[in-house]
Each structure stands twice: as structure tokens, then as C-alpha cells.
């Protein structure tokens, strides 16, 4: 589903190279964890997948279902089914969450040539999704993410993911800032989305989240490259021995 080949990317503003020849393949139905120390390029990778303009791809290719996405803007990528759950979801004053959800869902439907959702159908979907995430519908009347706690913001990200039904989900440090109860709720939300036709990429610094969302593959990112790939055992090894061992092996 996702194939990244020899990807090189830098910060557009100052030319600093962050991703240096990254290769990664994630199949449909797979849950892949990307782990790595701070500064290894994890968040950058997630932004590049979503199409953020602050980064410039200088070499290599990103194929999504066999099609290059490099020329697509973030909205086109989203409409094709790529979803990034942000590490720090932005607060957007003045945009009511409910209105935002409706516009986002209908924009994607429109891009796919589908009819906009009827209001009762939209509300039903939102009600079901919020219920399963133990969220209060009243929260959705507030401006998007404004005044939400850290946990509420992460739940709101998963809510969007549920409603938009993407094919490729990228979760950037979704566990950061969550207490254990919130972590379980969020993990349940993600697990419920596991499907044979959907891939999930979990970017995380710590192994903790992987106790709740068990990955099929684990990839270690270091200095902008995947330096080691393994199964869930690799995550446990990292937890026990730290990154130094794995990274030292690769270097």
C-alpha cells in the first residue's frame, strides 16, 4: 500500500537534510511501528507523507497504491485516503468542530464523486464514533481543539480518523501526553480500525503504546534512514537495551 524508495528530504527554509535515503514498505492490513530516538526524522516523515510544504523532497519516491503522491497537495492526499493524526493538533478558533467535521467529510466525498452526507446520517455517524471514544458530543460544539485537554485533542484526532475512514493512517506520537486510561481508549479506537484493506503506521518514541496496539512490523529510524526492521520483538529489545545497541549495530 505504501512504498517509500530512497527518500531524501530537507527543510525548505534552510536546506537542512532530515531524511537521508529512507526505504519503507507497508502492506495493506499491516500495522507498522516506526521507532527512533529524538531527531531521527520520525515527525518529519509523517509531515512529508501528509504533504506539508515546509519540507522539500529532493530525491526518491513515495508510492501509495502504486501512485506517486509527491505532486499532490495535502487535501488531495487526504481525499485519496491518507490520514495523519497530529502529535500536536492545532487549535483553530472560530471553526466549530462539528462544522469542520461536516466540511471535511463532504469535501472528501466530493473529491471521490460521492453525494454529500444528509444531516441525519452525518449526525448518526458522529454520535456512534463519539460514543465509542467516550467523548461528549457537547465538546463538538466548541471551536476545533480550542481549550481541549491533551487527551481530548488526541481523542478528537481518532474521532476524525474514524469518521473519515482513511486507507492509510499515520499516527504521530499519539501516546504523548496521555494518561493510561486515555491511552487505552485511544488504542481501542485504533484497533477497531484494523482492517485487511487498511494500513496503520504508528510513530512512537516509546514502546508503551505498542502494548496496546500490537504491531506486525517494527522499523527503527535513525538519522533519516530505516536502519533495522523486525517484528514486535524488536520493540521490546529497544525498550530493554535502548536505541544505542541497535543504532550501534547499524553504524
Amino acid at each position, binding site marked *: 500500500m505504501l512504498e517509500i524508495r530512497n527518500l531524501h528530504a530537507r527543510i525548505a527554509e534552510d536546506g537542512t537534510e532530515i531524511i537521508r535515503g529512507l526505504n519503507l514498505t507497508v502492506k495493506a492490513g499491516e500495522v507498522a511501528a516506526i521507532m527512533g530516538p529524538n531527531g531521527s526524522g520520525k515527525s518529519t516523515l509523517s509531515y512529508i507523507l*501528509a504533504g*506539508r510544504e515546509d519540507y522539500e523532497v529532493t530525491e526518491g519516491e513515495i508510492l501509495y497504491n502504486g501512485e506517486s503522491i509527491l505532486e499532490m497537495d495535502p*487535501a488531495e492526499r487526504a481525499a485519496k485516503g491518507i490520514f495523519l493524526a497530529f502529535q500536536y493538533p492545532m487549535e483553530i*478558533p*472560530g*471553526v466549530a468542530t462539528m462544522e*469542520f467535521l461536516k466540511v471535511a467529510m463532504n469535501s*472528501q466525498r466530493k473529491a471521490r464523486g460521492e453525494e454529500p452526507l444528509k444531516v441525519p446520517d452525518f449526525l448518526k455517524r458522529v454520535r456512534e464514533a463519539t460514543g465509542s471514544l467516550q467523548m461528549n458530543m457537547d465538546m463538538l460544539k466548541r*471551536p476545533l481543539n480550542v481549550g481541549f485537554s491533551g487527551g481530548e485533542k488526541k481523542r478528537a484526532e481518532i474521532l476524525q480518523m474514524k469518521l473519515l475512514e482513511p486507507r492509510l493512517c499515520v499516527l504521530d506520537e499519539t501516546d504523548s501526553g496521555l494518561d493510561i486510561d486515555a491511552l487505552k481508549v485511544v488504542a481501542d479506537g485504533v484497533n477497531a480500525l484494523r482492517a485487511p484493506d487498511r494500513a496503520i503506521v504508528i510513530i512512537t518514541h516509546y514502546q508503551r503504546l505498542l502494548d496496546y496496539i500490537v504491531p506486525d512490523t517494527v522499523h527503527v529510524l535513525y538519522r533519516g534512514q530505516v536502519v533495522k526492521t523486525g517484528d514486535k520483538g524488536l520493540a521490546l529489545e529497544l525498550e530493554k537495551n535502548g536505541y544505542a545497541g541497535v543504532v550501534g549495530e547499524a553504524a
Partner: protein
Amino acid sequence: MPGSSERLRNAMNIQANPTLTAAETALIDAFAARLSELPGDAAVMLRRDEAVERIKAGLPNRRVEAWHYTDLRRLLATVPPFDPAGDARPLSPLVEGSAVLPLLNGTATAAPVTVEGVAVEALPDLLADGRYAPALALAERDDAVGAINAAFVADGRAVEVAEGAEIARPIEVQNVVGAGQSHVRLPVRVGANARVTLVERQAGAAGGFATSVSSLTVGEGAEVLWVIVQERAADAAYLGQFNATIAKGGRLTLFFMNIGGKLVRQEVKVTAEGEACEFRLRGVNLLAGETHCDVTMVLDHLGYGATSTEVVRNIVLDRAHGVFQGQIRVAREAQKTDAKMACNTLLLSDEGEFSTKPELEIFADDVACGHGATVAEIDADHLFYLMARGIPEKEARGLLVKAFLAEVIEELDDEALVTALEERLNDWFAEHG
């Protein structure tokens, strides 16, 4: 070295404009032609004469401080002739069920609707017997809006809200002008502990020129929401002045929305007179095309412990030019004043312009006063977030711009009004993309 008499002559030459502009000439001629029709006793006519003298001395140009960003002499190059038969029709009210007072081409056309607790008088009656003469006196030399209006005002409504009355229906005044001129006044007194919402619509067709002066007295403990919607044609000129005095414990919210006009000046002159009174100014300027829109506020804090907040949000497209001047003067007796002013602009075109001039003059020593002004473009992070959810760039930008303005509108504690104003906002965006 020139002699003293020569220096004096030079100084006078700066004041007396030897060549009148086409607009000044037209106004002076129109005054002579309309003199016999203008209502008013001797006292009123004396005020009118004084007002015309101001016009003869020349409309203010950019060397007059209050008009620095709006060179009225240059921008108001011409004025159209009066046209009482021009195409001006009543509007459907902003909020359904409002009590509407229409003024078409400067003339009150219908008998005022009766609302319990509200007394409405025709302005010509107050002019004819001279009761209104004192109100036509011009204080400041730079009060060009007051002067033009005082010279020509022929109609308007005087509204009185009884003490303690709670008026559920908004009262909507519609000042609609065709291609001609309109000069109206709207004195409003709100009695102690009364509550009322007033809507002032400033609308009209191509080429019109209108002035409108309202003066509001907010009684002790009274609560007033006053909404100005200025939606004139893209080539119309409009000069408005809103004056208010707030008594002890009174609360006034003034909301304005400027969405039209070629030359617009909206003056706001408020005196927070009573102890612990409150003034809130909220406004949005939606500027496109060749619009020049100036909102100039002078707020005097006289009462002890009064609070005021001003939030003005602007979006500027095309070659539009916006101005916000906000002056807050805190008198020595006005201790414990809490005043905050903010003016934020989204500049969406390279050729657009916005000028902000905040001014604080504080003579009391125990006050909290602040102001801030920002000019920005759309936040790239916000745009990325919305697009990452599949919202195309153009729509995402539109959502963010609307959000920037809606934040101010949604502060109004009146759902029907908020909905109506947001509809205006949507219409404007539909028109200006």
C-alpha cells in the same frame, strides 16, 4: 523676515481654502437651494448656518489629525444631487419580527410601529419647535460629519425607551438612499434599567451619498445592544457618527459590520460617564474592491471603575484600504478603569492596505489599559491542518477567514442576530470569493 500681519495672513490661508472642491461647491449650493424646505425654527437655522460655514472653510484634509488617513477633501470629490424620488425601498429586517423604522432617501415614510415601552417621535417636529437645536451644535473643529449632517438633516426618528422596559423585539432603523443624498439623525434615550436592541441599517444604491448621526443615552443600569450594518453600494459614500453616553452601571455593546461603500467613515464617540459602566465595541470590516473604510473611535472614560473592550477584525482584499483609529482618554477621576483594545487584520491581497492608530491618553494613575494591533496572513499551520483533512485549499482559506470574523460575531449573545450576521458574511464571501 515677514511681518506679523503677513504671518497671520499666511496662517489664515492654511485655514481658508481659496478654491473649493466640486463636492464643497455642490454642498454649499444645495444648501442655498434647499434652505426654504429645511425644517427648523430660528435656533435650528442658526446651527445650520454655522454648519455650512464649516463646509465653506473646506472639508478636512490629511493635515487635520483626525482625518490623516482619510483625506475627506480628496476622497469626497463629488456629491450627487438630491433625488427624493430615487430608488430606495425598505429592506427585510435583519431579524424577523423587528419593529422597523424606514427612512427612504432621507425621509421617514411610514408611521412608526407601536411597541410597548417605546415612544417614537418624528425628528422634523423636534426641529420645527427648536427642541433639537442644542443637539446640532458643533463642538470640535474637525467634526465634518456632524457639520454636513447638521446643515442638511431633514428627518429621522427620536426614540425613547421607558425606564425598566424590556423590549423583546429589536428596533430596526433603515436608512436607505438611492442615487441621491440622505442626511438623518437618530436620537435615542434608554431609561434606567431598560433593555433594548437597536439595529441600524445603512444601505442603498449606486452613487448615493449619506450621512447619519445617532446619539444614544444609556440610563443607569440599562443594557443596550446596538448593531450597525453598513451595506451600501460599491460606489456610494457614507459618513456615519455614533455618539453615546453611558450612565452608572449601564452597559452598551456596539457592533458594526462594514460590507459596502466606496468611501466610508464610521465615527464612534462614547463617554463612559457613570461609575462601573461598561462599553464593548465589536466590529468587522470586510473590505474589497476600491473601498476606503475608516472607523474612528474616541472613548472617554470619566466614571470610576468602568470597563471597556474593543475588538475590531478586518479582512482586506483587492485594492481596499481600511483604517482604524482608536483613542481612549482616561480622566483623572476615572480610577480603576479597565480598557483593552485590539485590532486584527488579515491582509489577503498585495495591493490592500490597513492603517491602525491606537492612542491612549491616561490621566488617572490606577488603571489597566492596553492595546494591540496585528496584521497577518492566514496561518500556514491552520491551513495545513484543514487541508490534511481533505478540505481543498480555497475552501480551507475561506473557512479560516470566516472563522477569524465569526469569533467576533459569535460574542453577541443573541442567536437570531448571530445567524443573520453570519448569513451576511456568507453572502459577502459568495460575492467576493
